[in-house]
C-alpha cells in the first residue's frame, strides 16, 4: 500500500526494552514487512519490490514502489520491452507473488512460458556479476602495471548501474524457467479475444475491452484480499500486474492508427482507473505501450502523466545506429521520461540521463552510455569526426569531413 512506513518504524524502536547497554540501536524494519520480495525504500520508507532487472531497480531508486505503475514505451520490435516484462513476472514467480497477465496479441500463457530461468544459487551467480561490473577495467592478468603505474590505484570505472546491496534475483535469459516453478505461481490470465464480452449500456468513454480488463482486475484484487478491506490477520501478498501492448489496435483502440483517434480518451481513462486500483491495494503494475505508433504527441504526454514511472526503449535494431561504431557496445538507448513523486516532495533523481542497455548472453542490463576509447595508432580529432560522420548518408558525410579537414593544420 502506498503509505510511508517511517512513523510505524520509529514507534517500534521506542518500544524496545530499556536495559540495552548502548543507545545505538538498529532499527528493526524487517519486522514490519512480512511480505517476501519486498522491502522499505532507503529514501522514503516506501514499500518497494524488485523489477527483476538489477540495473533497472537502481535506476528507479531501489525498485518499484508498491501501488505504482511503470510504463515502458516499446522498442520497434517489442523485443526488449517484452524482456523487461518477463523479468518482472519471473521475479514475481520466484518471490511467490500473485500474477495478473493481460495480452491480446498472443495468449498470456505464451508470455509465461518464456519467463527467464532464475539463478537461485548465490555462489554461482556472484562471478558473472563481478565480471560485468568492470567491462572496461584492466584485465586480471595485468595485476601490476608495467607502464603508467600511477593509474593502478585509481578506482575502477563501473559503468553498469548497481546498488551496494542486493535486492531481487538474477536470471538467465538463455534458458526458460522450469514448468514446476512456473506452475507453482498463482497466476490470473486475461486474454481479451477469449474473454466473454457483455455489452455495457453506460455511456462511458472507456472501450469495452478496457472496462472488462479493469473489472476483472478489481475482482482479482478484491478476491485475493489485496485491498485494504481484507482482515489484517491473513498473510499479505503482492499482486504483480503485467499488461502487454496496451493501446494496440487489437484492444479495439484506434490510438495507433489515426492522427485524431475517435477513442482518444479511452486509454487515459483506463489508466486513471488503474491508478485508482493500484493506489488502494497491494499491487504493482508494468505496462508496455507501442508509443512509436502513436502520432499524437500531446496524447502521449497525457498518457505518461498518468503513469508514475515512465521509461522508453530505443533499440538500434533496424536503424543506422546499429552499424555505427560509437554504439557497438550497446543494443539501444534508454530514456527516462518520468520519475515518481509519491509521498514525498522530491524524488530520487538519476544522476545522469544518458543511459543505454545491452543484452548479454544471459543477462539484460542498463548502463551509463560512454563512448569506447579509440585505440588505433593514428588516432586524432579528425579521424574521430570521420568515424562519426561515416554513419551518415553520403552528402552529409562529405561535408562534415571536408569541414574537419579545413580546420586541420
Amino acid at each position: 500500500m502506498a503509505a510511508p512506513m517511517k512513523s510505524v518504524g520509529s514507534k517500534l524502536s521506542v518500544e524496545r526494552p530499556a536495559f540495552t547497554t548502548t543507545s545505538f540501536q538498529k532499527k528493526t524494519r524487517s519486522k514490519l514487512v512480512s511480505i517476501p520480495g519486498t522491502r522499505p525504500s532507503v529514501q522514503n520508507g516506501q514499500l518497494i519490490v524488485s523489477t527483476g532487472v538489477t540495473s533497472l531497480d537502481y535506476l528507479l531508486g531501489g525498485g518499484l514502489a508498491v501501488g505504482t505503475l511503470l510504463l515502458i514505451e516499446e522498442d520497434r520490435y517489442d523485443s526488449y520491452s517484452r524482456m523487461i516484462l518477463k523479468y518482472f513476472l519471473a521475479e514475481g514467480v520466484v518471490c511467490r507473488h500473485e500474477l495478473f497477465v493481460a495480452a491480446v496479441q498472443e495468449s498470456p500463457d505464451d508470455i509465461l512460458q518464456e519467463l527467464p530461468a532464475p539463478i537461485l544459487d548465490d555462489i554461482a551467480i556472484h562471478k558473472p556479476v563481478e565480471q560485468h561490473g568492470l567491462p572496461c577495467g584492466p584485465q586480471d592478468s595485468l595485476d601490476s602495471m608495467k607502464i603508467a603505474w600511477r593509474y593502478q590505484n585509481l578506482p575502477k570505472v563501473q559503468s553498469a548501474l548497481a546498488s551496494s546491496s542486493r535486492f531481487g534475483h538474477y536470471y538467465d535469459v538463455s534458458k526458460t524457467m522450469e514448468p514446476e516453478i512456473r506452475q507453482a505461481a498463482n497466476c490470473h490470465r486475461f486474454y481479451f479475444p477469449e474473454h466473454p464480452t457483455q455489452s455495457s449500456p453506460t455511456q462511458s468513454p472507456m472501450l469495452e475491452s478496457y472496462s472488462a480488463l479493469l473489472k476483472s482486475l478489481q475482482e482479482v484484487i478484491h478476491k485475493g484480499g489485496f485491498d485494504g478491506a481484507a482482515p489484517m490477520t491473513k498473510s499479505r501478498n503482492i499482486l504483480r500486474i503485467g499488461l502487454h501492448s496496451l493501446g494496440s489496435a487489437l484492444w479495439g483502440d484506434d490510438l495507433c492508427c489515426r492522427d485524431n483517434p475517435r477513442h482518444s480518451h479511452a486509454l487515459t481513462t483506463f489508466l486513471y482507473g488503474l491508478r485508482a486500483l493500484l493506489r488502494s491495494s497491494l499491487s504493482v503494475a508494468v505496462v508496455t505501450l507501442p508509443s512509436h505508433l502513436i502520432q499524437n504527441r500531446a496524447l502521449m504526454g497525457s498518457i505518461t502523466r498518468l503513469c508514475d514511472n515512465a521509461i522508453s526503449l530505443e533499440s538500434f535494431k533496424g536503424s543506422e545506429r546499429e552499424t555505427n561504431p560509437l554504439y557497438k557496445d550497446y543494443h539501444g538507448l534508454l530514456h527516462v521520461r518520468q520519475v515518481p513523486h509519491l509521498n514525498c516532495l522530491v524524488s530520487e533523481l538519476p544522476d545522469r540521463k544518458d543511459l543505454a542497455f545491452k543484452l548479454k548472453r544471459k543477462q539484460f542490463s542498463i548502463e551509463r552510455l560512454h563512448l569506447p576509447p579509440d585505440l588505433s595508432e593514428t588516432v586524432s580529432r579528425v579521424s574521430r569526426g570521420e568515424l562519426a560522420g561515416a554513419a551518415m548518408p553520403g552528402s552529409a558525410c562529405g561535408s562534415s569531413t571536408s569541414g574537419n579537414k579545413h580546420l586541420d593544420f
Partner: protein
Amino acid sequence: MFTELNSILNITPDNFKQGEFVLISDRHTDGSFLIHHFLSFYLRARCKVCFLGLVQSFSHYCAVSQRLGVSLVQAKEKGQLIFLEGLKESLSVLIPKEPNTGSQALDFLRDPSAGLRSLYEFVRASVSHTGGVEGVEGVEGGVEEWGPPVLLVDDLSVLLSLGVSVGAALDFSHYCRATVCSQLQGSMVMLVRCEAEEEEDDGDEEGPERLLKGLTHQCSLTLQVQGLPTGYCRDIHGQVEVCWRNRHGNGQQMQKKLFQYKVHDKSASFFARGTSSAVL
C-alpha cells in the same frame, strides 16, 4: 510552506491578498510541489480549504503535508479541509456495480459531454457554508471560525484526459472564480500540466495548451514551472517564472520575475539565475 516563495510573492499566512486566482503550469518537469506549498499555506492561514485532489491519493497529500508541518487529517476532522479524492471516487463510476453508489461530484466520468456542472455544485456546496454553520465543535467545545474560502485543484488538465472538453473545463474555472474569488472574496489555485513540446504551428490547437491559454487569461498570478532550457541538471530542478497581472491597477501593468529552484526534502529554495550553490 516555502518561506522563500512567500517572500517572493510578498505574502504571509497572516497577510495575503484576497480574491486571487493563482495559476500554476508546468512543462518538462513536475510543478506539484507548488500545490503542496499553497495547501499548507492556506491551512496555516486558517482559511476554509476545498481541495480537489484528482491525481493522487489522500495518503500522498497527507504524507507530504506532514513533512511541511501541517496535518491534513486534523484539518479534515476540524472541518477546515474538504477533500475530494478523485481516484477513490472514480472507481465506483468506472466499474459500476449497483447504481447510484458513488458521489455525484464525478458524474462527468459517466458522460463527459455533460460537462462539469456536478463538480461545480460540489465546490459551491463545500465553500459556501459559512464557518459558523459548518464548523464542528472545537477543542474547548466552542465553534471554530474559518477565514475566507480557498479552492485548490491538483491538475485540472487530467480532466481533459478523462474526456472533458476544454470549453467545459474553462467554464468550470470561470464559475468557480465567480463564486470563490468574486462572491466570497476567497482565493483559488489551479495546476495545469502541459506537454513537453510547445507546438509552434497551432492550427487547430486542442488540449492542455488551449486550456492553459484560457486560464492565463482569467488568472491574476501565474507561476510557470519549466525544466531548464539547457537540459537536465541534478542540482537545479528547473525555473519558475512568476508573473503578476494588475487588473485593477493603472492599465496593462505587468511584472515578471524569473527564478531557478531546487526542491529539497521538506522545502524548496529559489534563487536568481546562475546563482545556484552548485555553480558558485
